């Protein structure tokens, strides 16, 4: 074929037009724009927050679609085409330096987000997200409203749950230490309350617990467990002072349950997605030994010792 200017320009335009009609126009026309069952329109405030999200390039680290192979935040609900009908521009994202946010709404209460945006390491010590303390308060408020709307009706349901538990949590805190701890313990199911930590305290166990504490807990509960971490000033009710648990019946089971399940309504998140059983027992025992000053580790009632368990003396050698 002789490649004249006409052939090069005309031919490539022809090819291009054919391709565009197949891969751009055809999907544009045929993709269903029916909203999914969980969809709801965003409020004006939430849309303003989305603009803040766009302006600061949040989309480069946070994707907004959950895949069938995911285990992380929001993994219970795989993304549907109908979730995106109001997205202009789309914020699907192409990298996951931070977690997927498509179901982030209602995961945490608003005050947790305030502390997290001020400096992400205050709530998530190993995060590499930039601090957003430079945002004016109205833009920060809008951004938080947007994040809390992610997941639409599912987010609303989670937010409803946060609000429902926030009220009694605040009341309990304001009623004083004794009443607060009683309220906290009271919501742990009975069998957990009576359960001691079934594994012995060991030096390596405490070291592991410390490592977990520093990666997950220190921002709120502080380096000495007094609830005075850098995030504490922005959280209400504030993080628990562990030293106050001394002599107040905090069993290994209670600590385990609270770490696993979190306390919805407060800034205390659940950690069961991120920490396996051994890590939760280890960090619970670390808190018990160092901050509460009493541990029920390896006391009765306990079952058959796990195969790995060694005698104390050997571990400490």
């Amino acid at each position, binding site marked *: 074929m002789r490649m004249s200017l006409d052939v090069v320009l005309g031919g490539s335009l022809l*090819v291009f037009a054919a391709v565009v009609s197949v891969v751009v126009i055809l999907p544009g026309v045929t993709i269903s724009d029916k909203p999914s069952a969980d969809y709801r329109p965003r409020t004006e405030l939430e849309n303003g927050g989305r603009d803040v999200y766009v302006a600061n390039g949040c989309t480069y680290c946070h994707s907004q679609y959950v895949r069938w192979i995911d285990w*992380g935040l929001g993994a219970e609900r795989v993304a549907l085409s109908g979730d*995106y009908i109001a997205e202009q521009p789309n914020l699907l994202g192409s990298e996951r330096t931070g977690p997927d946010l498509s179901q982030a709404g209602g995961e945490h209460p608003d005050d947790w987000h305030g502390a997290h945006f001020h400096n992400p390491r205050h709530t998530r010590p190993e*995060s590499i997200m930039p601090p957003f303390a430079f945002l004016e308060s109205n833009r920060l408020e809008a951004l938080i409203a947007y994040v809390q709307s992610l997941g639409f009706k599912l987010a609303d349901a989670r937010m409803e749950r946060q609000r429902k538990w926030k009220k009694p949590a605040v009341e309990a805190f304001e009623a004083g230490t004794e009443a607060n701890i009683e309220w906290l313990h009271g919501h742990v199911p009975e069998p957990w309350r009576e359960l001691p930590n079934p594994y012995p305290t060991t030096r390596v166990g405490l070291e592991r617990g410390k490592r977990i504490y520093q990666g997950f807990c220190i921002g709120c509960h502080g380096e000495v467990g007094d609830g005075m971490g850098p995030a504490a000033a922005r959280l209400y009710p504030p993080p628990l002072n562990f030293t106050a648990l001394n002599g107040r019946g905090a069993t290994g089971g209670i600590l385990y349950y609270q770490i696993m399940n979190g306390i919805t309504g407060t800034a205390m998140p659940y950690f069961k997605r991120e920490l396996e059983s051994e890590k939760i027992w280890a960090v619970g025992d670390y808190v018990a030994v160092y901050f509460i000053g009493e541990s029920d580790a390896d006391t009765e009632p306990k079952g058959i010792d796990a195969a790995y368990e060694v005698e104390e003396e050997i571990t400490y050698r």
Partner: protein
Amino acid sequence: MNSPESAQVDTQSHATALGYMISAGVWMVIGTFAGITAGIELIAPDLLGNIAWLVFGRLRAMHTTIVMFGFAVTMLIGAAFYIVPRLVRVPLFSEKLGMASLFVWNGSLLAGVVALSLGYTQSREYAEMFYPSDIGVVVAFVLMLWNLIVTVMRRKEPVLYVSVWYFVGGLMLSAATYIIGNCMWAGWKGAIFGMPDAVIHWFYGHNVLGLLMTPLAVAAAYYVIPRAAKAPLYSHTLSQIGFWSILIMYTHIGTHHLLQAPAPTWLKLISVVDSIAMTIPVATVLVNLWMTAQGRIGKLTQNPAARFVFVGTIMYLVVCIQGPFQSLPIVQRITHFTHWIPAHAHLAVVGFVGMIGWGTCYFILPEMTGRPIHSKRLANLHYWLMFMGVVSMMVVLTISGLIQGHAWYHGEGVYRVLPSTFLYNVMRVMAGAMIVVSSWIGLYNLLRSIPQAGGARASAGEVAS
């Protein structure tokens, strides 16, 4: 069999070509600096904390926009403004028009990047620049095309060499892709709604590489390699197969970015099939270029300019084996969303397009100025730093990406895996530092190679050496 003719040294000013290439050198210095700054923020997030215009999400967009459009594309457009007139044996239609297009192009990019730093963005990757810049970019494309097409129409050479097809065809389709991809009919929003927006976005996103950067880089390689090897082009037929098949295959594959998103399955299928079919244009182009140089590879590797281009074509092979591979759903389960993706992107833009860009620049500078480049030693240093930088970045990010991908796939959360990437992010900055320094050397060497810009001292230094 035809090849770029070995004409005498042109004495015309080449202001447009040089202007584009100098702009590219400057943009690369800025763009890589933005990149390394963003990289440092990943390992020290509080270092530049709360400086709004330097927040990672804004820097990242500035980095990709500057390096892709400011450096890689601009360098090769500069080459086009020298190579196309040369191949059709007439001077460029209008240097004034060329300078006007450069002014509009640079102005649009600068305005777009400043707007990004202020938080004005259309948010879609590689289509971030705000509406006025979009208009400017399209105007600049039209001015470039006008200039080049009129030049070709006035040609004295009856046969159009393959580089001309790619330069002119690539720029024309890029202008069209830019308008469609940026949804310019939607005005300031620069996007439509929902999944159709994602489909257009990634049609565009991949075509920035496939219809803009790749044709420009391939065109430049088609010019440099036969000349450097002093051999006629191996096959005219392969050139044609390569040209038409890249237009057909590459344009279909954007949706492979959305394989795990709720996009239509038939579209995903097309994207994967054509991603694999991309091996056809890549193989034809590379077979054609390498067979041209067969037995003469030494000629290519001794000269830093030709070595840049030759190694760029090897990078092209690696990128385009990796690309089809990672478009497979079973591979994407691990690689998607991870550092594997920026590893691939850096290899494509810096390793393939960027190295061919700099090599072509070094190769045509002596043809334009009639004297050797300022320093062959600096060019060699430039080459090695850029090569080592991009290869080590590729290796480091690929490892990091595999760590992330496997950990996620087997049930770890993003936050738990994040600390595992720290060391790789440190090494990524070290690799980036090599590319940053290489950009300074490249710009310095380029400026000193131009008599008008380098002044008398450059000539004196050259005599002394």
